[in-house]
């Protein structure tokens, strides 16, 4: 038997809780003859379809909020770059030599703030984009790496053609926590509002 609570929480990200429950009930009823693979395919296709509809119905608002998310992302990145510079200088002063930016602690130091910021931006977007929480968050997740890549292309010593795709994928992956942030904020809103 498929995990229908998980399926319901996935659908509840893109529609109301009661619609998610009845849809999962329908899929569960049919999965007895069609199997679990069909059930999960139905859940993900329905979620994708509702996500797209949410974006199409609120395209301007979702895109505007996504740009706002990118701007916040930029502010956080600037702050992190400043703090990283200071940390780099302190480390060099304490150890007596320049720290290697390829070391694991430095990579964690560089990636962790982006991931935390993405989580926080996901939560903010979810609060601001009532009714299109996930479409706005997904738009931000897609837009942020594209914008940072475009900025990188105009910088001297920017990425080469072969580096573009890995950078884009890594940037995209670092912003995935935004979905968790949006999901958490949406869940809190759901618990505050009565079931319709």
């Amino acid at each position: 038997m498929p995990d229908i609570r998980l399926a319901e929480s996935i659908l509840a990200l893109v529609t109301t809780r009661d619609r998610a429950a009845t849809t999962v009930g329908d899929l569960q009823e049919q999965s007895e003859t069609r199997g679990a693979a069909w059930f999960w395919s139905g859940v993900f296709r329905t979620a994708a379809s509702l996500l797209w509809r949410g974006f199409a119905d609120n395209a301007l608002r979702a895109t505007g909020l996504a740009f706002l998310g990118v701007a916040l992302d930029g502010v956080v990145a600037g702050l992190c770059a400043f703090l990283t510079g200071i940390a780099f200088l302190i480390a060099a002063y304490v150890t007596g030599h320049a720290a290697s930016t390829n070391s694991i602690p430095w990579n964690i130091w560089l990636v962790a703030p982006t991931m935390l910021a993405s989580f926080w931006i996901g939560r903010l977007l979810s609060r601001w984009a009532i009714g299109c929480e996930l479409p706005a968050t997904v738009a931000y997740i897609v837009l942020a790496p594209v914008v940072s890549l475009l900025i990188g292309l105009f910088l001297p010593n920017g990425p080469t053609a072969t580096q573009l795709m890995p950078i884009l994928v890594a940037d995209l992956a670092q912003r995935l926590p935004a979905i968790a942030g949006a999901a958490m904020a949406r869940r809190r809103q759901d618990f505050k509002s009565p079931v319709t």
Partner: protein
Amino acid sequence: MAAPDTIGEFEQVVLLAILRLGDNAYGVTIGAEITACTDREPTPGALYTTLDRLEDKGLVTSRVGDPTPQRGGRAKRFFTLSANGLAAITRAQQSYRRLLQGCELPGLTYA
């Protein structure tokens, strides 16, 4: 006067299936009715998105039934055409009817 909402081809199919099913129109039966009448199986994504859209447009109304163990304790959502939905499907079908008048289609007798 504002122009009435136009409805897409799949929306018409869903509205007609709901109309045919009467009191027993919920996701599973609507999908089955569409498959039986049109030989095409709607994907769950297309069906539920369309049902949500029709409800948001005010063309259908829904009520939630009682939860059943066969459905993991989840209730059925039964759909009914609203007065606006009935008017919209009637308008759309009248347009088709006018378009069909004077046309000869193979294997189709127009009444």
